[in-house]
């Protein structure tokens, strides 16, 4: 589901002052992050233009759509301009004149918009992309937030229990259940829960019951909570398994260390050993995975959102792909890229906080 979490851990042995090294490393990391964002911005533009198809026609298969209307739409969205100097279009590749005014190319307009902090107007809904993403982002954050908190808490708990009681019946059950949960197809689990939930009278679609906006705030929140139950449950089951497995294996490794043996020899009880000695070290791999997940789940909830008609970012991306809505796609991808890069950056920092021996390279 996700790329394997690997990170080079560097034990510092050099003579430079630790603070200086740390600052320099952080600055270096930050510079890389910025560079990556710039790269994504460039890639974002060309990626969608090498896809086949004409956004001014996308989704319109109607005998009433006349060529003149398509041309007027192309002009409106600037699609009648060359993509960039020397290229009329990228798919099909059509070479054009190189001496066109670069300020009139689609690429320049895209960059100009971005520098102004604008993401453009959606071709499909004619609304500013920033408005669409803004609305949708909060819905997704709400869903992911609840799902992540639940799956982290439950996953860690189960992972610790399984590791502490390794090779017991509890361990086998936990590992078995986690493996199953981790490998369940998201949409399939979603549909199952949808059928089950609707038989209990739970809402199966949307974020809120239409017409609730005139009700008192508490009733509104309760209503949203009810709508969140099924998607959050789906999310939690899917992600909990992964966290349990990672927590368990990393804790098992730590528990076999000599210093844990020493702690046991000192007569510390289970809680003391786990809390004061084992957990902090065992958390490292989990932090990495959580950080990476946080970035990826913004896009990864597409399936959950479409099963439960949750008006989130994933849904917006899906629709934009279908409609060839470049501005929305560009905006959404930029948002996701920035989230992933930021999450990774934060994971690096957290790493050295958790384990002072580790510095970031």
């Amino acid at each position, binding site marked *: 589901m996700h790329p394997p979490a690997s990170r080079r851990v560097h034990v510092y042995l050099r003579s430079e002052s630790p603070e200086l090294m740390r600052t320099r490393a952080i600055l270096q990391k930050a510079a890389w992050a910025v560079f990556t964002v710039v790269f994504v911005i460039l890639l974002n533009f060309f990626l969608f233009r090498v*896809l*086949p*198809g*004409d956004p001014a*026609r*996308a*989704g*319109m*298969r*109607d*005998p*009433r*759509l*006349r*060529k*003149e*209307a*398509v041309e*007027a*739409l192309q002009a*409106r969205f600037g699609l009648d301009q060359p993509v960039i100097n020397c290229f009329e279009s990228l798919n099909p590749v059509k070479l054009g004149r190189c001496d066109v005014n670069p300020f009139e190319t689609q690429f320049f307009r895209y960059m100009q918009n971005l520098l102004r902090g604008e993401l453009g*107007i959606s071709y*499909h*809904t*004619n*609304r500013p992309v920033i408005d669409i993403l803004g*609305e949708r982002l909060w819905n997704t954050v709400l869903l992911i937030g609840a799902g992540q*908190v*639940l799956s982290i*808490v439950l996953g860690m708990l189960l992972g610790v229990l399984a590791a502490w009681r390794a090779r017991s019946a509890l361990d086998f059950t936990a590992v078995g259940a986690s493996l199953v949960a981790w490998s369940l197809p998201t949409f399939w689990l979603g*549909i199952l829960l*949808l*059928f089950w939930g*609707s*038989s209990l*009278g*739970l*809402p*199966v*679609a*949307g*974020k*809120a019951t*239409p*017409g609730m*906006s005139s009700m008192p705030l508490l009733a509104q929140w*309760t*209503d949203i*909570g*009810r709508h*969140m*139950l099924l998607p*959050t449950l789906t999310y939690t089951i899917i992600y909990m398994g992964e966290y349990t497995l990672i927590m368990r294996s990393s804790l098992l490794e730590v528990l076999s260390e000599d210093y844990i043996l020493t702690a046991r020899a000192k007569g510390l009880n289970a809680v003391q050993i786990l809390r004061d000695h084992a957990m902090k070290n065992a958390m490292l791999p989990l932090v990495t995975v959580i950080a990476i997940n946080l970035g990826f789940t913004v896009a990864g909830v597409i399936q959950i*959102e479409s*099963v*439960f*008609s949750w*008006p989130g970012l994933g*849904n917006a991306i899906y629709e934009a792909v279908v409609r*060839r809505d470049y501005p929305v796609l560009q905006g959404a991808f930029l948002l996701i890229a920035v989230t992933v890069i930021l999450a990774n950056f934060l994971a690096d920092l957290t790493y050295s906080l958790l384990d002072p021996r580790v510095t970031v390279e």
Partner: protein
Amino acid sequence: MKFMYSRIVLLLLIGSVLLSACGGGGANQPAVVRIGWAGSPDTLNPGNAILSTSYTIYELVYDSMYELQLDGSYALSLADTASVSEDGTVWTFKIRDGLKWHDGQPLTAEDIAWTYNLYKDTPEYPYLNGYYTTYFDTITSTEANEVVLTLTEAIPNIESQLVFLYILPKHIWEGVDKLEYENLDMIGSGPFKLAEYAQNEFVRLTANKEHFLTPPKVDEVIYQTFENQDALVQAIRSGQVDMITEMPGTAMESLKNEENVKLVTGAPYSPGVTDIIFNQIAPENCPTAEGGLCTGHPALQDRTVRLAMAHATDKQQLIDVILLGLGTPGLTLIPDGLGSWFNNTLKDYEFNPDEANRLLDEAGYLDADGDGTRDMPDGSRPLTFRLNWPSDSIDAPRMAELLGEMWLKIGISLEPGAVDPDALTAQCCPAFDFDIMLWGWASDPDPSALLYVYTSDAIPYGSSETGYSNPAYDEMYANQQVELNAEARRKIVWDMQKLVHDDVVYIIPYYAGAAQAYRTDRFSGWITDQVKLELGDVSSLVVIEPVK
């Protein structure tokens, strides 16, 4: 501390479930109709709209000069009378007195003329400009509350040209950017007012009890979006919605036996057509200047081959397997849902693989190398056709499989493949870089739009998908465009259908039906006995009443 928070979250979640169980209905609650559908409007600005879901909302919130009835006919709406000049180019509509916008301002001929001019002068409006105002010359309003519409030429179908031109309030629209305006207040004059709109979530409408023609009996109508059709079916079962506008075919059987749910089927409101497209463009017609590649298999230019394939196609099986019986066998691009425009006297080619084999044998398409696939009479290449369909189609893969089996029995083999819809458009027209495609069309209430698809004019234009070119047909098309006598026009339109059916331009497997369902314990009076079925149509929504 972290653990505390999660406990609080859990408690809140559990609490909310318990609380919600306590909600009950009072005695004098407003009558709210909840409709579940799979879509959402793309925009509330009628000029920019593309999706039919948007039009569904416009039909409720706006009025237009004519209303399209469920039997396919038109009724004057905003005007008391309509009259036309001798030469058929000047239409005068006497607008009703005392009409009001939802914000209380008067609606007059001036608003109507202004709106028509807006549509006419905005080329970026894909349909309302591009198609419906093609023949508009000038539009003016008079002191006597009349709209005078002058056309560039006399046309036979003024009603269908005006039916989707929703009238907008001049006092609001003249001050806004007609392309960027999102129209979130959506002041109209129709039987329902927009109360609340959340894109991709719901549209909430309240009744306009002062509507001049059809004041609704219910108080509110809510269209709620379900991105997932299984959820839609579950929602009507559990009573979360009172009506659903669509469902997966597999749900029909189970809903039939559901208590308090009535399943209804019929021809859809916007009758569509599914087509099997043969690339039959003749080399001399290839639109090379527009990017024409014309790589189609030469055998498909031969009517005999197409006719044999038609004889080998078991349409009833396609309907039974793909639509689970919900559909009728197709003939031409003009679907039966278009009422009197549909030529119901045409006799389809009999399903008869033996006859198909005989035709191919006789024409010299023999299996020379004995590999099970017939070859061209000169032996140059086998009758192996590329078969493509848009990858977002749910039905096409099954159809491709069935067609592959059916046609293999007459020695024709296929290379099937799903293609991204946009890539398919690029392959299709005017490139003609394919052999056979499975696709479909939406239709206008007037047949002209779909009849155009068969014309030679449409080849370089990108609307023709077969490359069919027949001067006799082109002439008939031009004639029906200017024939003012409705009966004479109908006759030409029927002859055109016969011509393209005889030429086997397409195989039309079926006209799909619509299936909808409503809860019998919530509202009564849904209209289900018309030519077309649309429970979400204004005609139903203004007459239904809560079940006592």
